[in-house]
């Protein structure tokens, strides 16, 4: 399927999902839970652009996500912009942070880069904790507008926005995968020196990758204040965002756009179920156990497992 066709088809699929869910599902809780799953699809897809395609492991997902959320908080306090505009603004700010992080750290490789991104998350969190205007360590209450701008409840509105962002993220990832840019990313992942010798401007491509990845993470964080209505640094910078956005592509498969989607739907849904039926404290344990299982039985994720099965049958 060509790239243009994919955008159209995925848009139609998204629209159908939106209409069907809004039409068939009455219980608000399902939208509340689905929002979480969708948010993880965006985060995992964004992470995979840098981590899976370009080969740079980012443990700072929480920071980009929270920067998006706090951008929205600032805009909420100063303006009365609609949420989609806040998402764009969050994306821009997080993209800038991604660019800066790339510039400062991309000469580091492998585990050193990963540690640097972890450090970035701590630096960003420290800044927010000490910034009173956005609530500091106490956190901040964000009052939702009384009425949703579109038909239905406010949570259904946020769900619709996140679904749209999911469509955009996945389509961007798929576009990159089939493009010259994506091939350049893969070359960097496989061998940076050889990539440079083959004419790939590695520094520029890595900056594009960190910027894009950071921007999408920020966009997914921007509606968070309205979703939770109370935002504090400890939960918005939570390590679980970083762990999940690494684990989901790993479990789904990192070489293809569908991998993070599968991983996020699977893990995200299991976590939502566990939160309701057992306890929310169990979430990270589930992620850990699944991660170990998959590293052993399917090191290339579910997509890799399917691919090798198919290749085995062809031979």
């Amino acid at each position, binding site marked *: 399927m060509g790239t243009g066709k994919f955008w159209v088809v995925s848009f139609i699929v998204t629209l159908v999902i939106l209409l069907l869910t809004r039409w068939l599902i009455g219980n608000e809780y399902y939208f509340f839970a689905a929002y979480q799953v969708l948010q993880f699809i965006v985060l995992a897809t964004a992470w995979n652009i840098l981590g899976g395609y370009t080969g740079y492991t980012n443990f700072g997902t929480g920071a980009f996500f929270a920067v998006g959320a706090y951008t929205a908080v600032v805009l909420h306090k100063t303006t009365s912009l609609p949420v989609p505009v806040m998402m764009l603004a969050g994306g821009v700010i997080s993209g800038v942070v991604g660019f800066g992080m790339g510039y400062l750290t991309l000469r580091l490789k492998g585990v050193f880069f990963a540690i640097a991104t972890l450090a970035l998350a701590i630096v960003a969190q420290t800044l927010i904790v000490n910034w009173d205007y956005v609530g500091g360590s106490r956190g901040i209450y964000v009052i939702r507008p009384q009425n949703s701008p579109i038909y239905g409840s406010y949570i259904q509105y946020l769900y619709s926005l996140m679904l749209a962002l999911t469509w955009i993220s996945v389509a961007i990832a798929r576009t990159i995968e089939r493009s010259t840019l994506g091939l350049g990313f893969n070359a960097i992942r496989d061998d940076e020196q*050889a990539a440079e010798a083959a004419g790939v401007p590695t520094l520029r491509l890595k900056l594009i990758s960190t910027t894009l990845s950071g921007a999408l993470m920020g966009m997914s964080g921007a509606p968070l204040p309205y979703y939770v209505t109370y935002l504090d640094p400890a939960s918005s910078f939570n390590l679980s965002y970083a762990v999940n956005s690494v684990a989901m592509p790993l479990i789904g498969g990192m070489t293809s756009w569908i991998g993070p989607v599968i991983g996020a739907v699977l893990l995200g849904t299991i976590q939502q179920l566990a939160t309701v039926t057992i306890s929310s404290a169990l979430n990270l344990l589930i992620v850990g156990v699944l991660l170990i299982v998959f590293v052993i039985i399917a090191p290339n994720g579910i997509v890799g497992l399917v691919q090798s099965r198919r290749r085995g049958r062809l031979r």
Partner: protein
Amino acid sequence: MAAPILEVNGLGKRFGGFVALENINVTVETGERLGLIGPNGSGKSTLVNCLSGTLHHDTGSVAFDGRRLSHLDPGDLYRRGLTRTFQQPRVFRELTLLENHHDTGSVAFDGRAIDGMPAYRRTRLGLARSFQLPKPFRSLSLVDNLRIPVLYTVNARHGAHLSAAAIAERCRSLLADVGLADKALHLPRDLTQVEMRKLELARAVASAPRLLFADEAMAGLSPSEVEEILAVLFRLNEQGITIVLIEHIMRAVMSFSTRLVVLVAGQKIADGAPQEAIRNPEVERAYLGE
């Protein structure tokens, strides 16, 4: 005679206190087959790394496919544009390089002095290399391995926009040239050692270079495999690519090269016709001892 394709003037490279290369002057004429030999650790690979942009030299200048630079004294170049590179901390290498490039550009080289130019831009200019230890893109099929240099060099040059079909055809014919056509969709891990070397060469050639550094393309191969690689290199040279061959296998070097440069301990000790160069007493001493 046509202008040389590559001119290296007073090139030097240190790693901390260790002098890897000192005052190297080499000229590569267009279309020639230059052999570069020397004992292990003599600086051959370092020289290639410096010329192809993988490493950056500390002193001297390199000009590629430019006008003759004889009217400019290397020391002058060095002072006017190149001093910054080595005084900056290595981590900011690429940053300062851009500046440097700008500076050297103002010294009227027509933008052809490549000191400090990042490796990918040298490749785009037409200066390609293969790696001593093959570095294939392991997760990509052979045809995609070649598609990368085609997309990023040939397709990026003076606004050339090849169609997807033309690019695919080009990759296929490059693979066919080195006898790997039937493995186009395989991954590099399926290849034998000699096929890996061929892929390495094919990927370097895919950028349509005018000058190719073949860094030990034959190390560890059997005599018949050496012949295969040599045949590929001869064919490339006939197509008009100037080749610098870095090699330890003397039989291959002697049959391939039209000229030989010998490095010992970071210094050039011989430069001339192959037969004469290896009879040079200094060369004999370096290889055989006193």
